[in-house]
């Protein structure tokens, strides 16, 4: 506990922490969540729009999904998230032909019988595939373009409305399998991606009432706050961690290494101190925001602890992961490499979201869950089980990295990683 306090003091007194704290607060301010720019109001009848929501309407989903699949098929470039990260899929000749058969089955146009039977692409002269009035022209890179006439590129897609929902779903399962899973065409995400419909007044009212009853208003604000804080906590905590570890220069480490403290206690104290420091500005903002909402909505109408619940449940695992990355890679390499690692993870995570993931919900090992709206409590409740799994997964990842850090630190104390690719120059000086 004493070491934790001392490490915390060291972090709090550092310039890098000051800059990180300012960055966190400024980010919250510029995103309109500190102080909050909007309040939750009861929807009024007759408004122009109440937003959109996902639906399971086959009439809406089927043509939208089929056209999206067709566009990706035309370029032979598909987007999928098989492991939670974006992956651009290009199909080989054999799979492309299978996907072509799915497209053909979805289209009201008729692909020439030669292709249907053999899967071969007849040339355009032997290489052109007839689809209704147009033709499917293979490019040199293996993709296709649709030629309606001699010159005009076909951008539309004529969905075969005769297809049943069950048949459509079966075709989408095939398409998703061909893409390796995790695509927009998986049953789980099709309604979010292609089934967006306007929210009615009654639904908006129901959502409002849920926000009042379940969230006590502040829960919705806390979610939006968590959404933005996740983005910044997914990156900034790596900096204090890296700088703290790098302050243990070569001629300091040997004195630290020969102390009786165990590596586990030392690394844990350091990790917890860093975590406390980066969460401190967040917790202060949570307290201030609770006060602001108490003034806006009345103390009796809000949950005064909800910001702190979200801080620990939603934001803390993200901060833990980025701190652990800083601790692990800096201890391992004695370089700021952790910053690059965390930047890559953060960039892939934030820029890699597609469709529904971009603004709502969570992938299995997504560092930064999203809920980029004020309200939509039911949507949150729908993905809450996934969110819980994700937060546990990210927490375990952080714990695993901290455990590895302890092993690495302990090995270095015994000179085991002293002679390494990173420290080759020290071999001679040690003699």
């Amino acid at each position, binding site marked *: 506990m*004493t*070491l934790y306090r*001392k490490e915390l003091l*060291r972090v709090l*007194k550092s310039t890098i922490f000051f800059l990180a704290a300012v960055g966190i607060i400024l980010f919250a301010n510029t995103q309109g969540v500190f102080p909050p720019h909007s309040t939750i109001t009861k929807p009024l009848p007759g408004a122009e729009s109440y937003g959109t929501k996902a639906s399971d309407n086959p009439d809406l989903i089927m043509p939208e999904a089929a056209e999206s699949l067709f566009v990706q098929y035309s370029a032979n470039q598909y987007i999928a998230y098989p492991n939670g990260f974006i992956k651009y899929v290009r199909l080989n000749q054999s799979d492309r032909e299978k996907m072509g058969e799915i497209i053909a089955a979805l289209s009201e146009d008729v692909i020439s019988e030669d292709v249907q039977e053999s899967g071969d692409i007849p040339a355009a002269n032997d290489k052109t595939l007839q689809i209704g009035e147009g033709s499917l022209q293979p490019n040199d890179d293996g993709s296709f373009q649709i030629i309606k006439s001699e010159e005009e590129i076909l951008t539309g897609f004529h969905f075969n409305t005769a297809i049943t929902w069950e048949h459509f779903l079966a075709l989408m399962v095939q398409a998703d399998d061909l893409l390796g899973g995790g695509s927009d065409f998986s049953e789980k995400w099709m309604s979010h991606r292609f089934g967006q419909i306007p929210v009615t007044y009654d639904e908006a009212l129901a959502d409002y009432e849920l926000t009042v009853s379940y969230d006590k208003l502040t829960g919705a604000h806390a979610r939006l706050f968590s959404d933005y804080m996740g983005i910044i906590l997914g990156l900034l905590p790596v900096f204090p961690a890296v700088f703290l570890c790098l*302050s243990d*220069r070569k*001629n*300091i480490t*040997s*004195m*630290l*290494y*020969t*102390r*009786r*403290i*165990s590596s586990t206690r*030392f690394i844990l104290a350091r990790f917890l101190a860093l975590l406390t420091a980066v969460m401190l500005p967040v917790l202060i903002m949570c307290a201030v925001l609770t006060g602001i909402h108490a003034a806006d909505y009345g103390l009796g109408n809000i949950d005064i602890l909800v910001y702190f619940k979200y801080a620990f449940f939603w934001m803390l695992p993200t901060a833990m992961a980025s701190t652990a990355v800083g601790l692990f890679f800096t201890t391992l390499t004695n370089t700021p490499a952790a910053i690059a690692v965390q930047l890559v993870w953060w960039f892939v995570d934030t820029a890699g979201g597609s469709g529904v993931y971009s603004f709502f919900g969570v992938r299995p090992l997504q560092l930064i869950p999203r809920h980029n709206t004020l309200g939509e409590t039911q949507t949150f409740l729908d993905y809450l089980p996934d969110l819980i799994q994700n937060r546990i997964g990210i927490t375990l990842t952080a714990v695993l990295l901290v455990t590895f850090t302890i092993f690495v630190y302990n090995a270095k*104390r*015994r*000179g*085991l990683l*002293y*002679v390494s690719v990173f420290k080759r120059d020290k*071999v*001679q*000086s*040690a*003699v």
Partner: protein
Amino acid sequence: MSESNIQIRNLSKFYGKKQALCGLNLDITSGMFGLLGRNGAGKTTLMKTIATLLRKQEGDITVCGIPVENAQEIRKIIGYLPQDFNMYGNMTVSQALDYLGVLSGMSKAERHDRISILLKQVNLIKHAGKKVRSLSGGMKQRLGIAQALLHDPQVLIVDEPTAGLDPEERVRFRNLLCEVAEHKTVILSTHIVGDVEATCGEIAILDEGRLLFGGSVSGLCDMAEGSVYTAEVTQNELPKIRAAYTITATLSQGKNSTVRFLSPDRKPMIGKPVTPGAEDAYIFCLSKTGKGGNLHDTI
């Protein structure tokens, strides 16, 4: 104080293909123990291995009866002052000691008591609130010895502590080590023979990881008895003397120079025998390996 002994048996250590320590055997008793050798002789490797910072590959080391493999226990009873000691620059002297005291598992009361005793002992009490980054080299080394003594270890390992200190600081530091060594085992690694001569009862000389000599300073001097000569030569004769003998010291006096040199195998044509000093004996010992060379030390 027999439990303060360090026993080293057949110790070998490799860095890749390079052998840093070759089957070393050594017994270190309480008091000051000097470890001499050229740069690269294996002194730091030996010190770091005793201090649990490096893992040995062959042989055994026990510190106060505890095998060095039991790093957790060894760390309780050793204090270590590395070469080029440094500490977090933004900490004050007392904050630095307090931080290291926490890492040594000391209670708040223990830290408070020990820090004030040590700051007085190393004459840093007036600088307790000074930032580490603003300390002079000598003050930093004194802080270094204070941190090494913080948890009152039975064994103190100091690696070239006087390098870079001015003569006054050097003498003060040596005296401090002697004071400490009254109740502990202090291993002093250095290539400054004067430091060892002035402080250590027992010494060991290492060369390329091997033990060249182990014993007392007087024993070392005895080895060189009859092999050290002095002569007054002109500047023109000096190159010939250098070519023929291992010179341990040269004192220039106008056109003439007084040289001390080694002639272990035969009586030289010039000069008269003198009583060897520790430095002569050290060079004599190294010269027996065939790599002695000249010590161009102008007195």
